[in-house]
């Protein structure tokens, strides 16, 4: 497991910046909580987003959830194969289950997010 990812309270993870770009996905906890995923809408490449802005949606049999940008920046790549293999989100959340790549405006925003221990404390306090 990657130890250096950071998490938003809204369950997205973001990798460290490599070559100006960070990778974003959602946590296995979130996938397990949603279950029965059937549909995903991804943002368009080139879109400028603000931290906390909805950049897509993930739909389960029961409900639709927004996917939020964990930091401000530009969407530079999206995982276009993901909507056809949503099971990847749960099986390989930090690998093939990545969702978008983003060029952060301020990489320091990532450091302000939850580290793994803080995120695990957050989800440990939530009812499953």
């Amino acid at each position, binding site marked *: 497991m990657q130890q250096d990812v950071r998490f938003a309270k*809204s369950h997205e993870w973001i990798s460290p910046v490599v070559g100006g770009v960070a990778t974003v996905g959602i946590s296995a906890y979130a996938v397990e*909580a949603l279950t029965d995923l*059937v*549909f995903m*809408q991804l943002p368009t490449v080139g879109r400028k987003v603000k931290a906390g802005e909805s950049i897509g949606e993930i739909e389960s049999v*029961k409900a639709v959830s927004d996917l939020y940008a964990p930091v401000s920046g530009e969407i530079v790549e999206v995982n276009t194969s993901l909507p056809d293999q949503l099971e990847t989100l749960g099986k390989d959340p930090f690998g093939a289950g990545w969702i978008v790549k983003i060029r952060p405006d301020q990489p320091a925003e990532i450091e302000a997010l939850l580290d793994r221990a803080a995120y695990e404390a957050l989800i440990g306090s939530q009812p499953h």
Partner: protein
Amino acid sequence: MSESATSPLPRPTILRETALCRWHAAHGGRMVDFAGWNMPVQYTSIVDEHLATRSSVGLFDVSHMGRLSVTGPGALAWLESMLTRKVAGIVPGQFRYTLVTADAPATLVILDDALVSRDTDAADGTPRMGLVVNAGNRERVVAWLRSRLPASGVELVDHTLDTVMIAVQGPSAVDVVAGLCPGGDGPRIRALGNYRGTTATVAGHAAAVSRTGYTGEDGVEVTVAAKDAVAVWEAILAAAAPLGGRPCGLGARDTLRLEAGMPLYGHELLPHSDPFALGLGLAVNLEGRTFPGSVALATMKAGKPARVRVGLDLGSKRSAREGNVVLGGAGYTPAGGDVGVVTSGSFAPTIGHAVAMAMIDTALAAEGTAVEIAIRDARQPARVVGLPFHRRPAGGGKPAAGG
């Protein structure tokens, strides 16, 4: 992800529990507040539970639904005067789908949809009637019916808390339950017609068994005393599991009834609905009968509804949800801009894509009509189709609306 982004304030609600509640929680049930009851929405996966019910057996705890008995020498005649469905001709062991209506002057108020049944008559020949009503409507239905009870001759008792009802649904459901019954009980259960019931001993416990359900599958609903709930549930599950049977939550129950085109109170069926527009005319018998709301219903029956209930096939993975607006196709521009509203919608596991039920302008209700549904920022094309979306293979009785 919006869900759980912030921790909601704890609500001090005390939820009601069925006699199976602890079993559900101990076996992985994801418990939610459903109409004030602590119920499992799913155990592992709504899709897996849905498909198990279509292919084998699903067990559902439906004990939150209200179970009322109406007994005494005047029981039959009184129900005949209270319900939209004709009760007078009902024979012991028969069930009928009905609406429970109240009336303000010239105004119809639908309180619930329900199953009315006639059990075996008492030893002295007086009829014993039953009503099964929705969990969320139970208290007001009981209060309404009590307010209309005659001074004597009819007794209404709410048995919801001292019994459980287990829905056993799917192509193997009748075999599973009949196999747990000794002597002649098993064959009698196998021989039950649709919307017929009998008493039986199931896994050693006294039970009422009816060929009813809310999934579009063949199956039975088994009612036993609350003290026998876990023993009977576990015996049915043990018999079903080798066939692929599994416990199912209310999430699968909702997707199953959607595929079966069955209305749900609070979604399709509302206090001021026109039941004829919903395709529920069979639940309303006005011939020579007077009951609360019958005058308003006669007016509705004679009129032409502005909107009717239809099925919509989206053909997509994206689902329409209750409240989404339906827009007309090219060339149809109504004054208000919209032509209908979605009442229930979901990914349909048996079908493999999303379907919905909607109330739609009568002019657009013909099968094959192309419409669009506004879903968040998208306009999703859809096609009007007949209901149900899924019809089980021939054999057994035909599915009918339940509550």
